[in-house]
């Protein structure tokens, strides 16, 4: 009986931990990324970028262009941070290159759904991600891969 109670307690603790992790707010995630070790930072910053890209899509769809633009700016900011940390630590370079490629594709698709006035910052973000990606590729080949 005591064993069963312990197992249930452990399972409950594990699931609430998993739930807490899953529902981590953007601000909490940003705080975690800022204080993380350099080798953990690329993945965390990438997660922030991907979340903000999803938000940008939702915000533009909801007609909140200004907030959408701010979210797109976050995509660029945290992609740059992910890029810098990956170059510095040598971790997740290949993963990041693939993720940037896919995010740039999503940004281009998003851009085409917007009014002409809203398109330029989204195109600029896609271009910036392509530049970061090219830089990662140069870094990979520079290391003799």
């Amino acid at each position: 009986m005591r064993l069963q109670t312990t197992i249930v307690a452990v399972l409950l603790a594990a699931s609430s931990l998993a739930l807490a992790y899953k529902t981590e707010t953007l601000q909490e995630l940003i705080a975690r990324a800022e204080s993380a070790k350099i080798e953990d930072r690329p993945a965390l910053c990438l997660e922030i970028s991907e979340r903000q890209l999803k938000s940008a899509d939702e915000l533009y769809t909801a007609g909140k262009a200004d907030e959408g633009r701010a979210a797109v700016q976050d995509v660029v900011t945290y992609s740059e941070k992910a890029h810098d940390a990956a170059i510095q630590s040598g971790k997740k370079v290949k993963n990041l290159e693939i993720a940037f490629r896919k995010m740039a594709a999503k940004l281009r698709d998003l851009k085409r759904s917007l009014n002409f006035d809203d398109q330029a910052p989204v195109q600029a973000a896609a271009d910036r991600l392509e530049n970061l990606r090219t830089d990662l590729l140069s870094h990979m080949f520079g290391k003799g891969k």
Partner: protein
Amino acid sequence: MISTTSKLARLVVALSLLSTVWAQRRRDPLNPVEQDKLRDAAQEPSERLKLYIEFSRTRLASLEQIRTDPKVTDRGQQTRARLQDFLDVYDEMNDNIDTFVERKSDLRKPLKAIIEADTEFQAKLRAVKSSADANKDEAKQYDFLLTSVLDTIDSSVQDHRQLLSEQEEAFKHKKK
């Protein structure tokens, strides 16, 4: 003097606008006609995804064309550019699939067409890979990208099959 400065300023603005427009066109893997077609099919998952298959297929046809054209001198660079175009369109297709899955759209029909196209794309790109092995110097310019494209299709075909099986299960229960 003011007039000259003003003319110069106008010229700079015009040139910068032109370069922006040109850059936007250059950086988008889809031409304006294709973009319009996609816009018209924005709410039709089946139509939209079929368009992406068609556009991907066009990119591969263009790749095959330059690979066999004896007049092409910079084949390595041209191959690389066309592979990148194909990959950009293919990535967008996958991104659209994710969006439609989130909206709980029925993708069974387009997924079958996509899986067939995946097999066709794999075969054509493997043929490029085989011919690349015969010309190593030229292949250096696009070998990494070609490997990335093949990796992307290999993993995507698994995802597409898995998704189709999930959708068949889900929509079977919905019918009841």
